């Protein structure tokens, strides 16, 4: 099973500069744990206090995961996951 994950510029320090990496997991939380095993430090940039960080957006097949279960969002082989930091400020 392989899921392609698109990594934003600011997190590519964790992926050796790679724009996309692949991982495994039947849920988003499992995928993030799998990514962490190969790219240590990444998880902490995505998750805070057991939930997705407020200003990090994760999409599965173009759907914001907040609308499809958050960390419990289900994944299947071939899914496309995109991580994008929010563009926001005060």
């Amino acid at each position, binding site marked *: 099973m392989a899921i392609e994950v698109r990594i934003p*510029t600011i997190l590519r320090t964790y992926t050796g500069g790679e724009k996309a990496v692949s991982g495994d997991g039947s849920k988003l939380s499992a995928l993030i744990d799998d990514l962490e095993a190969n790219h240590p430090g990444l998880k902490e940039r995505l998750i805070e206090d057991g939930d997705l960080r407020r200003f990090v*957006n994760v999409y599965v097949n173009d759907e914001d995961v*907040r609308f499809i279960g958050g960390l419990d969002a289900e994944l299947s082989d071939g899914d496309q996951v995109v991580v994008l*930091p*929010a*563009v*926001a*400020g005060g």
Partner: protein
Amino acid sequence: MVGPVEAGRAAKYAGPVLTIDQATYDAIVAHAKRDHPDEACGIVAGPEGSDRPERVVEMVNAAGSPTFYEFDSTELLDLYKQMWDNDEEPVVIYHSHTATEAYPSRTDIGLASEPGAHYVLVSTREHGNNDGPVEFRSYRIIDGEVTEEEVTVVPELT
């Protein structure tokens, strides 16, 4: 003290300078004035690695607020997919401050996530929706560190 030497330096080291054409500058200012008193936000995309702000994309401020801005998450994804397809990147990320100076707030600094972008701040505090000058300033924001840079407005990008 702006002479040929200064101009030469600016041309040679593109890093600390934002060079932007008049039409793009005017579009950003017009957007900020139109949305006042809410904060306006958007980007100017350009070819990857070119440092050329060529294509203004006005974004909706999903926060609809005078003190906060945030791109809608679905529109954000659409925007980035478009840029990836075009081999573009956000050369400029702009937003307005409507009651304070055109300097990044603590929130702006904390949430800045495009180390390669010029962060443009426009302040509409003086004239609001009306004609009149605005503050228009540009910064690099990298790892929480803010560096202001010169803004050079040219008739057209060469």
